[in-house]
């Protein structure tokens, strides 16, 4: 419940503050968001599996977000669509985590 409240708070803050992002940064922010979402689902999954490690989560969250942005930047400068690699990697992991969370949810509620 608290994570959802955090999400809602973030959305509300975003709507209220309405900070403009330069168009050039939109790509980097997009991939960083994907990395953040992946880390968040990873954390949720770890939490459900009771193997959550705060340091690992925070480290992974920040590291993945920053590295994802840097990969896109590097790809732009090299003329290689490196962001696709980040999208695929994070996307695959995101769906894997979602699948595990879903299964765990089903297991808890005895829906299986």
């Amino acid at each position, binding site marked *: *419940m*608290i*994570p*959802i*409240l*955090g*999400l*809602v*708070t*973030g*959305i509300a*803050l*975003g*709507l209220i*503050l*309405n*900070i*403009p*992002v*330069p*168009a050039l*940064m*939109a790509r980097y*922010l*997009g991939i*960083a*968001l994907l990395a*953040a*979402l992946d*880390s*968040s689902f990873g*954390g*949720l999954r770890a*939490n459900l599996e009771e193997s*959550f490690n*705060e340091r690992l*989560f*925070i480290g992974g*969250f920040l590291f993945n977000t920053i590295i994802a942005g840097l990969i896109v930047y590097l790809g732009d400068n090299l003329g290689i669509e490196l962001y696709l690699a980040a999208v695929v990697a994070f996307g695959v992991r995101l769906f894997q985590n979602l699948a595990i969370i879903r299964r765990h949810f089903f297991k808890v509620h005895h829906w299986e």
Partner: protein
Amino acid sequence: MVKKNLRTQFILAFALMLFGFGMVMQLRSQERVGERLEAQSDSDLVEIMDTLDHEVGAIREELGDANIQLAAFKDSESTNQELLEKAKAEIVELQQFASERKVVGPGIAIRIKDKQHLLTGFDLRQIVEEFRSLGAWAIAINGKRIDYRSNFYRKSGVVFLDGQKLKSDYRIEAIGEAKLLYKTITMARGIRDELNTLNGIHVRITRGETLELSAIKNRSKWQAAQNDSELQKR
């Protein structure tokens, strides 16, 4: 355990809050970019169309001008070409008339047998002048072309034309209206009759044949007169 779980949830909540905040920023920026692009594309399109219209108009105008110029140029070119051809033809005619060019055409030929060397340069000049007055285009005596500077003189019973000895029999050729030339020369009291009155001179006239008179050779340079440009050099 509960405390740790709560802390975990708060950390996750914080992470998701950051995510949510970033997501809204991203959505807003994308929305703004899209709106800007749409607005720009409409206005730009109108502007581009307007500019293109102007450019098309200007290009059409230029094309029209270019076509007019091209037509004028073609006209002038053809006119110039015609004038050039005309000028060339005139130059050729003048060169022929000035004996600087070979002339081929119908005419008459007079063969004068003068064994006793009775004829003088004056007599030959009279014949030449007669041909000229009849519109002869080119005249030659013994194959030597006569031009406006030609001169005759007699020395030791021999007639000289432009300093060159003329051997008798004389063959005088004239290109022009062959019929007119023949009739005039052979008319009563004409040149033929006059020459025939002289003893020892026999005249034979042939007409209608195609004659070929070569260009004058070794033209003498101006001596008694100089042209204007030479005078200006002094």
